[in-house]
Structure formats: C-alpha cells, structure tokens
C-alpha cells in the first residue's frame, strides 16, 4: 500500500470510535478503508459509489466512519452510533436490521483461462487432485462455505487457506487469493463473486469464473447470498428510506455493480465474462 494511503487510513481510524452527532443532511456510512472492490478510503469501491447514489436520492451528503470490517466492526461503528448504515451485508445478518436486497451474487471458482478448467461443482472429483485455494475466516466454527464443503468431502490435503484478514498493510488483503490463481500458486480458487469478478477485470492474465452451482447439496451451507444494506435495529425511518431508494434506483444500481464485474444472480457467468 502507498504510504499516503496508509496515513489516510490511520487518520480515519483515529476518529472512528467516537460517536458524532449526525446532521439531518448526512448519510453516515460505516465502511472499511481498505477493502476493494467494496470500499476504500479513496471512495473508489462500488459501495462508496452506491453510498453517493443513495445520498443523492435522499438529498444528503455522504460522511464516513472507517473501521476494518472484521470482528467488532458493527459494535465499534453502527452500534456505537458513529454511523448509521453499512452499505453491504447479507440478508439475515442479525447484528443489524437489513433492508430489501439490492443484489444477489454467488461464490465462484476462479482459474486461469489457459488452464481450461470447467469445474463448476464442489462435487467434482478433480477437486481431489487440483490445488485449491479458499478463504479462511477463523471464528469458532466459521468458514467460507466452499472451504467447509471441501472438508466435508474429506478434501483437505490439497486445499490451501488464505486468511480473509491477510496483511492489512497491503491493499485489499482478501485479493491475495485471486492473485495466487493469476501467478499459478494454485490451480483454482473458490471465492465470493464480487471480489473475483472485480479482480478478473484487471487481471494480467485472463481468468475464468464459474459459479458454484451446488444449491442444496451441502445444506446448511449455501453459496448464493442476497446482499442488502444494514441499519441499527429499530432505525425504521432510515430502513424505509433505503428500501425506497433501492426500489427506485434498481437499474442504476445494477449498472454500477456490472461495471465492477460483480457476478449477479443466475447470470453470474454471463456477467463476469463481459
């Protein structure tokens, strides 16, 4: 990461935990300063652009509370009253009250196109031989669903874990998993679609993205998630306003997501290939 960027993050974190009085004219957003394609301190992530879009529709301006989106993120930002909305959370995430979803994406397999791997299911027998990268979460009993599904099949020896947290001095630490595919460190990665789709757009080598199509086979694990915005429990006014904007701006939001390479709904493969 550039030193300048690091300073910006540090300065932002300095003020993070202190609750600030909200202006009626402000959309106070809680966000990670170093997590593209979602958000960063330069406001170049799609959740930053979405915040602008939403604020504009509500006649407000955006202000940020920056905090690494990890354990304690909701507690130190939204619940600490430092900000009022998290732009992206899965529906059913009960630390917050979720709005109506504004997109649905999927975990995908990522490989180099020149490898010509058409693996599209976690039941594929080739997964026993290939070197497969997954993201590790690390909280008790928690992991990314593809990682758990592979373990459930007894596929562990050829699975390489990449910490979702990574090294926070580098930009967007979760991207290391995709870079490992690009540089041939692993044959295949199983990653959350928005991250993979964005990386594929700027990859030095052409990447192939294939949605993980296993819907119910590994229940209660799932690989598709609907994403909404999150507000504090009980903040029904803002919830309602955001629902309205999501309904009114559906087309613009979709356009924004597609421009970041986010695989959307069942058309994930098609969208990613653009």
């Amino acid at each position, binding site marked *: 990461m550039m030193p300048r960027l690091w300073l910006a993050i540090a300065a932002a974190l300095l003020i993070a935990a202190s609750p600030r009085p909200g202006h009626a004219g402000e959309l106070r957003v809680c966000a990670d300063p170093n997590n593209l394609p979602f958000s960063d301190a330069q406001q170049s992530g799609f959740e930053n652009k979405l915040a602008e879009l939403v604020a504009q529709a509500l006649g407000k301006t955006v202000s940020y509370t920056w905090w690494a989106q990890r354990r304690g993120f909701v507690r*130190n930002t939204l619940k600490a009253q430092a900000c009022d909305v998290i732009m992206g*959370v899965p529906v059913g995430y009960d*630390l917050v009250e979720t709005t109506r979803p504004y997109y649905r994406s999927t975990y995908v397999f990522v490989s180099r196109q020149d490898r010509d791997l058409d693996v599209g299911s976690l039941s594929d027998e080739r997964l026993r031989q290939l070197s497969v990268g997954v993201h590790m*979460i690390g909280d008790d009993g928690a992991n990314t669903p593809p990682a758990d599904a592979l373990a459930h099949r007894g596929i*562990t020896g050829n699975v390489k874990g990449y910490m979702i947290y990574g090294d926070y001095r580098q930009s967007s630490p979760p991207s290391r998993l995709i870079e490992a595919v690009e540089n041939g460190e692993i044959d295949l990665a199983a990653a959350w679609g928005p991250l993979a789709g964005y990386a594929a757009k700027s990859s030095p080598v052409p990447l192939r993205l294939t949605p993980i199509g296993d819907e119910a086979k590994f229940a209660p*694990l799932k690989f598709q998630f609907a994403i909404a915005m999150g507000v504090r429990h009980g903040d029904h006014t803002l919830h309602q306003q955001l629902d309205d904007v999501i309904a009114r701006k559906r087309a613009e939001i979709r356009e924004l997501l597609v421009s970041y390479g986010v695989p959307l709904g069942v058309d994930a493969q098609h969208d990613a290939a653009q």
Partner: protein
Amino acid sequence: MLRIVADTVLRSRGWLLAFLFSTGFSLAPVAAQDLKQLSADDNQWVMAPKDYTNTRFSGLDQINAGNVAQLKLAWAFSVGADRGQEAAPIIINGTLYIVAPYAGVHPNQVFALDATTGALKWSYAPKPNLAAEGVACCDVVNRGLAYDDGKVFLNTLDGYTVALDANDGRELWVVKVAEVNLGETITMAPLVVKGKVLVGDSGGEMGVRGSLTALDENSGRIAWRAFSTGPDKDVLIGADFKPHYDWMKGQDLGVKSWPADAWKLGGGTVWGWISYDPDQNLIFYGTANPGPWNSNQRPGDNLWTTTIFARNPDDGSAKWGYQVNPHDLFDHDEINENVLVDLNISGQDRKALIHPGRNGLMYVMDRTNGEVLSAEPYDTVNAVNGVDLETGRLQPNELKQPSLNRTVEDICPAAPGAKDWQPTAWSPKTHLLYVPHQHLCMNMKTSEVGYIAGTPYVGATVDMYAGPGGYRGEFMAWDPVARNKVWRIKEELPVWSGALVTAGDVAFYGTMDRLFKAVDAKDGKVLWQFRAGSGFVGQPVTYKGSDGMQYVAIMSGVGGWPGVIANAALDPRLRNGALGFTGAVQDLPAYTVGGSSLLVFSLPKPATPAAEQPKEKQ
C-alpha cells in the same frame, strides 16, 4: 520473514506523562537481585503469578480469617479506560505498577504508584498503532507487567515489548515482537527468567502461527523463538526432547500431524502463563487451540497446539511436551497456568505440575517427564471421556463431535472451557488449589450467516447456558492428591477473576456482579465482601506497605470475553451468535458496566502506628 526479525525501534515510542515528584520516594537505583529470591519476600509481589511456581500464595497473615471482616478500602486509582481489567498489579520496593487495557486516550498506559498511599509517581503511555484496535483479533485486555533488575516490562496489544526504568518510567528499549497487521497481538503478562523476557502472542483466529519469544532484558534483542507448529527446528525440538508418550515421538510432527501446509496458519498461540523450576532449569507453558481451520479441515493431531511444553530457558530447546487435546474440536486452548508443587502421591514424592485444563480435567503431571498422573473432571464434562493413563491420550466422546448437518446439543464444558485464563492459587498450608472457573454448557449448529471483509459465510451458532444446577460459575477448593472438591461456592456468573490465598488462611476472588470476596481457605465460608463499581475479571495480589500494613489490591472493570458469557446470564438460553461478536461490556447493563479502578484494601489503621506491629512471616 518479517515476523521473526527483531524490529528494534530506535526512536522513542512513548511519552512519560507525569514527572517525578520530589517527595515521598527515593531515586536510589533498585539493586539487582535474583527474581526467585525477590519473589520469596512476601512484602512484595514481583511478578503476576507471585512466584515462579505460580502459586499466588502470600505468607502475609496480618489479614487473616479472624479479622478479614474488618477489611476497608484504603485507596483507589483509575487507569482511565473502561474495558476488561485483567492485569495483576506488581509491587517492588514500595512501588505498585499497573497497566491499563488497550483502550481510551492512552492505550496500555503504565502507572507507578506509591504502594502505601496511592500517590502517582510516574506514568508512561506507549504510542499506539492507530489501526490496532480495528485489526486486532479479539480483545483489548492486558494481563500485567513484569519486573527484573530495575526494569519494568510491558507488552502492548499492538505487538511491542517495552522496557522502562522502574524508577522514573524512562523508556529503555522497544522491540516489535508481533505484527498487528497480520492479526498478531500480545495480551499476556511477560515473565522474566534468567535475564530473558518471555513473550507469547495472541490471535489464533487470525491465522497467526503461535510462538514464544525470549528477549534479552538489557537490549530487547531476540534470544530465541519457539514456534508451536511446523518443523522441529522451528519448534526447537532437538535431541533433548523426550516426550513421555510414544504418539508424540517422531520427526517433524508439527508438520506431519496436519494436512499439507495447514500448520503455517496453525494457531497454537501462547497467551497464558509461564512457570519456571530453577532446579530443573525448565520453563512450562501451554499453547492455544489450532486455528483458523475448522476441525474437519485439519485431520490429524495438529501438534503442537493445546500442548504443555517444558523448555530450557537458556536456548528454548524443548525437554518434553504433552498434547492435552489432540485434534481439538472445541476451541479448548490449554494456555492455563501450570502450578509447580511437590506432592506425595500414592506414597511417592513427585515433582508435580497441576494444570487445570480448559477441557474440564484437572491434570496432575510429573513435571520432570510429562507423565500424566491423574486427570480428574473438576466440573461437568461430557465432551470427552477422560484420559487413558496408559497412553496419555484424551478420549473424545464421538456423540459430541461438531457436525455440519445437525445441532450437537449439551456439550460440556462450553467453548471457554471449564476454566479459562483466570489463574488459580495454591496454599502450601492447606494443600488445596483454589480454582475460579465457569460452569457452562453449549449447543452448536452450523447456520448463522456471518460477514467479514465483504465476504458472506455460514458460521456456527453457539448457545451457551448454565451447566447442571443452573449456575454459571464457581469458586472451589481442590485437593489434587485425593482428586476431589473439598468445598465450593456457586456463583450466578462465571468467575473470571484470578485467585489469591494467604498464610492468614484467606482466599480472595472477584465476581462479575461486582463483589470482591474473602473466604475461609479451609471451608469456603464467606468472611467479607465488597461491592465495587464494576465487575471483576482481574487478579488479586497482596503486599505490605511502608506503614507496616498488609494491603490487598485488585482491578475492577468487567469486559472482553466475559461480556459474551455474562450475556448468557440475562437469558439462560440467549443465542450468542458467533462467539465474540457480542463482547461489548455495554451490552450488559443489567449486571455491570465497564470500570477502570484499582482498589486497595487494608485493615483499619491502628491509632498509633507502633501499637500493632504486624507479625513477620516465619
């Protein structure tokens, strides 16, 4: 590799906040003195566990079972950060040193106070890494400072060890031991052995590879580092290594007992207690759980996680190891203290080590070779079926194994174990171990939707609730020879404070519902209690002031992981979500909110100071 390079910071990393007051204390240099000798002086409390054997026993008896009912608050002090106060004060030459959690205006601030009057002598504030609080894995606690040869040693959450001049708080050296941007943090109290400051790391959930590092106390230079996973050369396993049991013998088991490369993100951090036996020249400590892999992703024993190590403090080489929980399923770190006592077991004198396991078993081991002599359940245990004393292997209960497709119900103990970091105390008078612990069971199922760094996932839902009998904590006295509980006090909430026991036959502990208690060490009768401003998760200590009075000190202020567990008390079946997400003390208004007070107690002072000369220890 970045993390094993000693990054000695040349510029000052901190501020001296309060300058020396000209009256009330001496600037005379503290004479170099062997720490073992120093710890035998009951007027002082020179290391968090009181002495190298980790007894937390004091020979002082001015306060005793007959008069403890008269105990009064003598003075108090705020460390200025209302988070979990787990630190033990240390007292050397009339000065009390205390460290604040990594929170507030000056995270991990250190204070030196006149131990008799509470007057502030100096204060030091490390320069915090601004990103650390958001990046650190779990908590902001600090378990205490260390002292040797005129220097006070501080571990900061953001990964530094700092040496300060004990007289004036001047910074002597600063060394980076852990990289917080990789999730490595430090919460444990360092221990100084033979001129080396021993420092372990925290952050197993973040993919940290656990290790114990020895720093030269004069320069801060790294003398050795012993990893908890990986090849023998990294674990400092060599020709001297002789585990008692065959299944721990072999080459590079820290690699072979894992799927390929999984040991590299293997956990086994070292955030608990270290004890030392000068006669054998061995240190003893336990490693944490394997992580960040779920159990089904890491078939194998996952050595050397949840392992008790005996090492030579000079070069770190391992003498023996004993893995408490092969292939840990339940987050049962074994970082708990190892109390070194000599016991007569079945007519034989044994150099013993008592390890109250996270898994609910009270291990009594031979500390010369790592043999398990007994492993008796001291709380409700059904997750395992005890230890096979022939093989030394823990016997798992297949019915309680976590599974993807079903809810596993009624697992005891719950993830925090039957006892966590909170240290026990041993009385050589009563031959009993005083054990503060929790009494919790849990249900586990995979279904919770989680979200981290922009990535949704499916996590485990853990419902923790009171164990059989409907209470959540206990303070009890354990006879390690007879292998039974002599008495117990049931507590509504988990007992997350440490214990202290004295020659006055009084045992002390604190509760999360704000009571600091003194009980009769012989029968557990409550003799005195004090209701504080916040709950207790700290460590009681005792010492003698320059006025001849015996003082008992403890930090008040609940927080951190106990917050999660105390949450369960509001509704016994309350779903906690993924562990750690609800850890804020602010979520517990029904019992307590955070605090930051050092409380110091004594008997009422006699009318004339000379009238009552306290008895000296025999």
